[in-house]
């Protein structure tokens, strides 16, 4: 019951979607709409589970005085700092309107933290590129050249440096050509490969051949 029922649910739901694709008529079209709205609700609960689990783990850390436990207090405080105003003092469904308490915290706490966190990757990418871009092999040289043209083609100085070249061969135009043709060709090969992989994995999941997501027992 612990493993069989989830497998049956997966098979029924998965086949319903596939049949609906080929037979988009009653009752499959209705079922597809219903299952999709259920899926969105369950996804929301799954993210709630993640948030609640974070609180549980943080509380455990505090109660056991584990390593770095004071930071767990800040995590919980951060959660409550946006959740309480979001639920109680932000006008209900209009919680994201400019001027609400939720929006204030989003603009002044969440947004600076998230954009700086992602901006930090610029430094790590620069350090990784130093290692990756040493033109030791033909392949590494191609990687280096493609990145060079794309990066320089995206800033005004690229066109200034290549202004002596005829129209159509300047840095920004070269970058566009690389992005439109060789880059797209490689990207397509990867996308087609991924799509075929997803199709086969989906079929394995629906047929119950792949069941590692259910864990042990």
């Amino acid at each position, binding site marked *: 019951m612990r493993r069989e029922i989830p497998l049956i649910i997966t098979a029924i739901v998965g086949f319903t979607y596939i049949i609906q694709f080929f037979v988009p008529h009653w009752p499959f079209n209705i079922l597809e709409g219903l299952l999709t709205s259920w899926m969105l609700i369950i996804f*929301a609960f799954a993210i709630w*589970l993640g948030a609640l689990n974070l609180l549980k783990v943080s509380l455990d850390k505090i109660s056991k005085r584990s390593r770095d436990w004071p930071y767990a207090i*800040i995590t919980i405080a951060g959660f409550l*700092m946006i959740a309480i105003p979001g639920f109680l003092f932000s006008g209900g469904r209009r919680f994201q309107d400019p001027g609400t308490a939720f929006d204030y915290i989003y*603009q002044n706490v969440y947004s600076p933290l998230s954009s700086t966190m992602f*901006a930090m990757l610029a430094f790590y990418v620069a350090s990784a590129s130093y290692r990756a871009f040493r033109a030791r092999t033909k392949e590494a040289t191609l990687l280096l*050249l493609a990145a060079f043209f794309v990066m320089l083609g995206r800033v005004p100085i690229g066109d200034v440096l290549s202004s002596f070249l005829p129209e159509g061969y300047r840095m920004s135009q070269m970058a566009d050509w690389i992005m439109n043709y060789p*880059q797209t060709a490689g990207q397509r*090969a990867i996308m087609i490969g991924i799509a075929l992989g997803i199709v086969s994995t989906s079929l394995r999941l629906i047929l119950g051949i792949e069941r590692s997501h259910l864990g042990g027992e």
Partner: protein
Amino acid sequence: METGFTFTNTLAAILTIGIISFLWRDNPLYKVCEALFVGVSAGYWFVSLWYQNLLPQLFDNLGISQLFSSGSAEDGALQVLFKQGRFDDRLFYLVAGLLGLMMLMRLIPNLGWISRWPLGFIIGTTSGLYFTTYFQSNAMAQLKSTVLPFTTVGNIVMVVGTICGLVYFYFSKEHKGALGGAAKIGTWFLMITFGASFGYTVMSRMSLLIGRFDFLFSTWLGLVK
């Protein structure tokens, strides 16, 4: 945006500097900002999903939110059932709510296995959906767009690059002879793709970084006009 040493700007600046301080080394200020970011992110999604998803999709349809609000909100499935005595299709949302609650059982160690049912549902929907959509949009549509007339260098590059790239991912036969040659050319195209994607990513991250420095030096400190 307001400029200068206002409370909000100073708060955002401290948080920005706190995250950047990791470049020096792991330090308490960074850890505080990191912990805060994790908590605020979780809280942000917790609230957003309630108002944007659970409330309109589940509780409004069932009529539970109408029980707690006065006004002329449309009747939900439960009101229709108990007031008018007829079955409303939206009652099926009870199943979604039940599966959602079963998902939360993961938090209770002895009942954690119950969450496999909604997990099975999610796996089934995503597998069924991706099976058709990925095959249609990422395999068939891409193949269709690749079959181009050999009239320009760009078109030739596109066709040759895609085919050779696919040959590289074909592992059922050893990459020798013509197959090996095509796979080698495929590798070159893949390297160009990775290089271009890398360059694109670097530029987007740089743009974010410039945005943060612009905030610090222009909006907050007012040093750059």
